[in-house]
């Protein structure tokens, strides 16, 4: 596959394939084809996702750290000014949607926002540029945008989910959390009025035993929907965006000589890709903001005592 022309299908598949590697036959091997990657099963790593997300995360950390170290109370310089604006923006939106008291939430929101934003930003790099660098390095595949890999978004969502579980238990206690899962939305009516074995109470207890699994089912769906919606929304948006970039890029690929149709395709690639890229500037920021805001809202819900 390293040479020769690809069909459209191959081109799309190639661009959507992660650099999947695993320990195999005593050495670290990377898949040379989609089938091979699939055959590696669960215990494989998408090296491109890991590398890009690490690089971008570290870039964010070093950038903000360097500004934080040099921060002055005087008139901020260019970079400090920018960082301050970002932090003020995050701080304001966290203040707006988080009602509890937790010093961890705002930094978490900042990290999520900047990280997701930077990872999304890679979407604006022309999709075939990557191959110019990765191919000479002997890498068959390299996906530049980690957020188009569900592993990355689901991974982040699981992190948020664990935080939701942790703070739910921490704030409400194990009993409170279990109560929230089992005694909602239908319960208070069935709770025994007094601890006595009157016929009415016995009836209530029986009803409660019936209603608890129903509640638990509903609340479990509610709970699991949070990380799932976080992960799939980001992944879906970025994947679809990337897909359209690939489809648009196919037009230029169809250029075969200076025929009229070839030039038309070439021109329409530019005409389509530019608005889509401009639109994507909005999308990537919005998706980062949504991921951050939903995380904050979910954590806020985890901090609230209902009953």
């Amino acid at each position: 596959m390293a040479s020769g022309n690809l069909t459209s299908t191959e081109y799309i598949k190639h661009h959507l394939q992660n650099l999947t590697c695993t320990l195999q036959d005593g050495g670290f091997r990377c898949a040379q084809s989609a089938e091979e990657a699939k055959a590696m099963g669960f215990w494989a790593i998408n090296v491109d996702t890991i590398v890009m997300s690490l690089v971008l995360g570290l870039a964010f950390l070093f950038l903000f750290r360097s500004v934080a170290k040099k921060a002055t109370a005087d008139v901020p310089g260019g970079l400090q000014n920018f960082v301050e604006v970002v932090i003020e923006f995050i701080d304001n939106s966290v203040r707006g949607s988080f009602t509890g008291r937790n010093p961890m939430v705002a930094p978490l929101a900042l990290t999520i926002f900047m990280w997701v934003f930077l990872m999304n930003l890679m979407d604006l790099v022309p999709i075939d540029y990557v191959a110019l660098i990765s191919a000479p390095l002997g890498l068959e595949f390299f996906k530049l945008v980690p957020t188009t890999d569900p592993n990355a978004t689901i991974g982040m969502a699981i992190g948020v989910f664990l935080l939701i579980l942790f703070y739910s238990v921490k704030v409400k206690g194990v009993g409170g959390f279990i109560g929230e899962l089992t005694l909602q939305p239908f319960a208070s009516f069935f709770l025994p009025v007094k601890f006595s074995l009157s016929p009415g109470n016995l009836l209530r207890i029986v009803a409660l035993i019936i209603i608890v699994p129903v509640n638990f089912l509903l609340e479990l769906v509610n709970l699991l929907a949070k990380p799932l919606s976080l992960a799939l929304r980001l992944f879906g948006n970025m994947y679809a965006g990337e897909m359209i970039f690939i489809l648009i890029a196919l037009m230029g690929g169809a250029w075969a000589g200076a025929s009229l149709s070839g030039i038309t395709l070439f021109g329409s690639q530019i005409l389509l890709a530019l608005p889509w890229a401009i639109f994507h500037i909005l999308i990537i920021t919005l998706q980062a903001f949504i991921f951050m805001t939903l995380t904050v809202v979910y954590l806020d819900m985890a901090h609230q005592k209902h009953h």
Partner: protein
Amino acid sequence: MNINATLIAQTITFALLVWFCMKIIWPPVIRALDARKQRIADGLAAADRGKHDLELAAKRSADILREAKGKAAEIIAQGEKLKAEMLDQAKVHAQDEAERIMVAARAEVEQEVSRAREVLRHQVADLAVAGASKILQREVDAKAHAEMLSALKQEL
């Protein structure tokens, strides 16, 4: 791996995107950042100016206070001086007055004395005339002896 015209198209698109960012997205962001910076700079400058003004005002108020104190001391000293002067004047005045009153009183007393002496003189003259007439057993003609009587009165 197929390197073909799509790469050129992507490059052109990328260049256009960068151009678009530079023209449309970058300036307002930079403007907002600059405005924010300017606002902070203005705020800090205003704070500095305020501090400076406060210092100046404190200095000025201290000056005014010192000046006022000096003026008050001066006024008090002047008052004291004036008081002493007035007291002296009053003393001198009172002495003069007293002397004048005394002189007048003395003059009056002398006048009274001379008047009394005059009256006495007349009475003595009358008495003498009466005594003489008694002695002479006849009336002394006052007219005839007026000259002598007045000479007598003068002598007394």
